[in-house]
């Protein structure tokens, strides 16, 4: 019973995390050059919603792995590598948002506008692994 509650909370946290990761590059690319106070507010939103969702998803995922005794499964090891990569992408986005909010006229680099594609690719691989519990 507790396992199912953990699973539901994990899925919720992942949805919020991914929503932020997928939308942040698109929203910022669409906004263009906005005043600095808006930049700071956007960064604060990311840190108040998306970053806690990432921490929640990671902690709940580890709890699920321990509770369900999944850590002996090789697909979970592969998933963990992808999650680490996803955490890195989140870090890069977060850092770029920090830089963008610090400097009034700082433009976003070209890779930022396409960061959602990396997130999407990692997410697709993770979903295949979790649903099939195998690559093939």
């Amino acid at each position, binding site marked *: 019973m507790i396992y199912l509650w953990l699973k539901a909370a994990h899925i919720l946290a992942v949805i919020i995390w991914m929503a932020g990761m997928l939308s942040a590059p698109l929203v910022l690319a669409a906004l263009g050059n906005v005043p*600095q106070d808006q930049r*700071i507010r956007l*960064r*604060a939103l990311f*840190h108040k919603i998306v970053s806690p969702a990432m921490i929640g998803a*990671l902690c709940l995922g580890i709890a699920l792995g321990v509770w369900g005794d999944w850590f002996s499964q090789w697909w979970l090891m592969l998933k963990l590598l992808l999650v*680490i990569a996803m*955490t*890195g*992408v*989140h*870090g*890069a*986005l*977060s*850092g*770029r*948002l*920090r*830089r963008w*909010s*610090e*400097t009034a006229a*700082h433009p976003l*680099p070209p890779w930022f506008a396409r960061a959602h594609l990396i997130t999407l690719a990692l997410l697709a691989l993770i979903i295949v692994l979790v649903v099939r519990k195998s690559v093939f």
Partner: protein
Amino acid sequence: MTAHSNPPPLRVLRRVALVEGTTLVLLMMVAMPLKYLAGIEAPVQVLGPLHGAAFLIYLYTVAESWGAAELTPLLTLRAILAAQIPFGTWLNDRALARQAANLTPSRKDPI
């Protein structure tokens, strides 16, 4: 939150690197020998997850610093590789300190 509340460049990364390096050294030099030479498993059971968490936070912070244009791609790669070997992040600290000093007078964008 304001843009001016941020710490100086790379300060957070250097501190996290110190913690990550310390947990790796303790795991490799203390906990693992205790497990395999003396059969005492408790230190590995404590330090293993602790180092895992420190490693994840370190990688996140490296990526964050790269995203914030505080690390060049080469320094980013070097920081990631440094975390794979004992004492690596300690030895890499001088390179991070140099980069921090370069960034402080006028922020450059190495990306």
